C-alpha cells in the first residue's frame, strides 16, 4: 500500500512570508496528524483530525498556523506569517481509526523541511 505522501519536501522562505504544506494520508485512514519536529527534538503534535473534524489543536499556534482537512482525506497546513523559529520538519501521519484498542499505529510521511531566513 502507498504510504503517506507530503509535498513539498523542502521549502525556503523569508520571515513574514506565508507557506503551505500538503499531505495525502494512507487510503482509508480516518485520523490525520500534523507534527512539528525541530532539529534535535522529538516530533510535537500540532493538530489531529478525525475525518474532517479537529480532535486536538491545543498545541497549534493559532495566531499564525492553520490547518484543514477537506472531505476527510487530504490536508493542508499553513503558516502565515512565518517566523525564524518555525524552521523545522513538518511531519504528517495517519492512522486507521480514532483509538481502537491497544494503540493505533501512526504512519508518518517523509516530512517537509522548512527553513525560514
Amino acid at each position, binding site marked *: 500500500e502507498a504510504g503517506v505522501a507530503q509535498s513539498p519536501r523542502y521549502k525556503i522562505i523569508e520571515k513574514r512570508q506565508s507557506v503551505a504544506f500538503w499531505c495525502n494520508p494512507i487510503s482509508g485512514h480516518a*485520523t490525520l496528524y500534523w507534527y512539528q519536529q525541530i532539529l534535535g527534538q522529538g*516530533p510535537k503534535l500540532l493538530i489531529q483530525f478525525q475525518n474532517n473534524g479537529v480532535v486536538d489543536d491545543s498545541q497549534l499556534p493559532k495566531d499564525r498556523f492553520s490547518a484543514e482537512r477537506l472531505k476527510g482525506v487530504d490536508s493542508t497546513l499553513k503558516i502565515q506569517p512565518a517566523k525564524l523559529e518555525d524552521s523545522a520538519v513538518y511531519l504528517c501521519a495517519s492512522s486507521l481509526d480514532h483509538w481502537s484498542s491497544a*494503540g493505533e499505529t501512526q504512519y508518518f510521511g*517523509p516530512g517537509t523541511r522548512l527553513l525560514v531566513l
Partner: protein
Amino acid sequence: QQQVKQSPQSLIVQKGGISIINCAYENTAFDYFPWYQQFPGKGPALLIAIRPDVSEKKEGRFTISFNKSAKQFSLHIMDSQPGDSATYFCAASSIGNEKLTFGTGTRLTIIP
C-alpha cells in the same frame, strides 16, 4: 507531567553488541509505549510497542523492557548491525487520547 525523558542523546555501539536506550515518564495515565526508528530524510516508523500489562516484549532482535513501578521503559537491540544506525524515539500515549508524546531522541551509530 506530559514529558517523556530519553537517554542517552547519542550512542555508539560496536557491531554485534547490545544497544540500550532508556525512557522515563511521569504521567501515570500513559498506557501505550511505542518506539519509533527514524532514518535521515525519512519520517519515523514504528519499531515495536508495549502495553503496561506485560514487562517485556520481544520482536526479533528488538526487545522492550517495561518497569511500571519505576515508570521506565527501555529498548534493547541485540546483535546491533550497521543498518540499525538511526535515531530512535520513545513515545507514550493514553487510552482515549492517542496523542503521542515523544522523547527527545537517541542517535545510534553502529561501528564495524
